[in-house]
Structure formats: structure tokens, C-alpha cells
């Protein structure tokens, strides 16, 4: 299974990778992108089954990425991994077509609970 991690923080990309492993998701092909624009350019090559994206990023944020994908009828499973966790932002994410939102900071248990529905 291919997973694309999108975050402008190198440290956070590393933490997401590590947490995926700690949550027991070992056999994943993980690709990284530094913002939404970078993600769009990498999607064709890496063909992700799941995108884990930060919300606030320079150039193109996570919402811009999600809206661009859905506008182009690309329905890759998409989840935000973000500091934005308020009910209003969760609703905004859901309305835009996000499958889930994981709030930072997160634990391996949170990853396991949420992602087990999306990672086989």
C-alpha cells in the first residue's frame, strides 16, 4: 500500500513515519511531499492509496490539495494530520471530502484506531 505524507516540517514527516511503524503499519511504501503543490506533482508517480496531509503549509495548503483532488474527481483516501482540531475545522474538512482528521499531537494508538479503517 502506498502512502503519501504531506507536511512542510521535516521533523513532523519523520514523526508521522515513525508513528505509522509504532502503530503496526509496517509494510507501507511511504513517499513525502513538502506542501500541496509538491504533493500534486508526486501523486502521478507514487500513486498513493492514502494521503496524510498537514493543513497549514506554504504555497498550497492541505485544504487546497484536497479541493484540487476532489475537483479533478480524484478520490484517493485523504486524512488531515494537523494542529487544527476544533469541531468547526473538522466539519470543514469533512465537507471538503476528507475521510478523517487526526489532531496533533497524536499517539500510535490514535493512528491505529483511525487508520485501521483505511490501511489493510
Amino acid at each position, binding site marked *: 500500500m502506498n502512502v503519501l505524507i504531506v507536511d512542510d*516540517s521535516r*521533523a*513532523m514527516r519523520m*514523526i508521522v513515519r515513525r508513528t505509522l511503524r509504532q502503530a503496526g503499519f509496517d509494510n507501507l511504501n511511504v513517499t513525502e511531499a513538502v506542501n500541496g503543490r509538491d504533493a500534486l506533482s508526486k501523486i502521478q508517480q507514487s500513486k498513493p492509496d492514502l494521503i496524510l496531509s498537514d493543513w*497549514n503549509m506554504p504555497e498550497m495548503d492541505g485544504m487546497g490539495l484536497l479541493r484540487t483532488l476532489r475537483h479533478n474527481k480524484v478520490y484517493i483516501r485523504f486524512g488531515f494530520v494537523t*494542529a487544527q482540531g*476544533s469541531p468547526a475545522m473538522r466539519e470543514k474538512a469533512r465537507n471538503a471530502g476528507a475521510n478523517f482528521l487526526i489532531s*496533533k*499531537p497524536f*499517539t500510535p494508538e490514535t493512528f491505529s484506531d483511525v487508520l485501521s479503517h483505511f490501511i489493510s
Partner: protein
Amino acid sequence: MGKGFSVPDTKEVSRMLTFLLGRDVKVGKGSRIRTGNRDKWTLGVFVTEDNDIVGVCATDLPLASNFGAALSLFPPHMAKKCIQEGAIEEGIWENTLEVFNVVSRYFHDAGDGMIQLGQSWKDGGEVPKEIKKFMRRSKRRTDLRVNINGYGNGALALIG
């Protein structure tokens, strides 16, 4: 209008930082952080989508260095070097900003819509006028002493 900034208790901040840094973080009440002209402080400002300030997070140099090093599991001596030299290395500061970004969660109810990290400062000196004004007028703040296991202590203030 948002509900305003609700000051988190020390246990909650400890729990949040422990999850984020993946190591034990102890948090207790601290003395008021020094942000004078000659002090070494860092600041992150939280803003609405209209760029209105709703909160400020301030640290001393040791905590900013320790936050940044601990997030990426950089060895503690890298943080110590920043503290000794009185300047935070860019790679460490990038991580410190990510910690500030997560700290924004405490200000999500302080305004409408998205609240995010806006401007930031890392070199101390004169606090910008509008930030100073915000800090002076703020009604809610907490000053904390933070110990990151394996790295060290530092001061954190959350002001809203």
C-alpha cells in the same frame, strides 16, 4: 466572536508535550518569563484568518532550543550549543516552530475560523510594539516551568 483563550492546566500541557516529543515532559507553574530588551526570548503569535492576534506563546532561549532538538531527536548537546552561543540554529528553530504550531490548539476557541501560527521571533531584543500591547492588555496568561527529560528546563508562557 470566539469564546476566548482558556488557560490550560499544567497536567494538560505536560500530557500534550509528552505526546508530541515522545518523551517525559514535566510542567509546573513558573515565574513570569522575561521579555526585556536584553533578554533572549522567542515568540510565536497566533492569528485569525484576518490576521487578528488572538494569542502569544513565549519561551526563553533554553526551552526553544530544547523543544527544537527534542522534536527531531537531535542530541541534547546541539541544544546546549545554541544556549551557550545565545542563538538558535536554523534547523532547530524550524522544529521549535512546529512545536508552536501544535501549541496553537490552546487558542482555537479564541477566535472564529482557523487560528494559526503567524509571525515568530527567535532572537530576543525589543518585543514588537503591537505584540507588547497585546501582551499588556491580555487578561489570561500562564507562565510555566518545563522540563524535557534528557534535555533540560526552560520557561514557557501562554498569553491570550
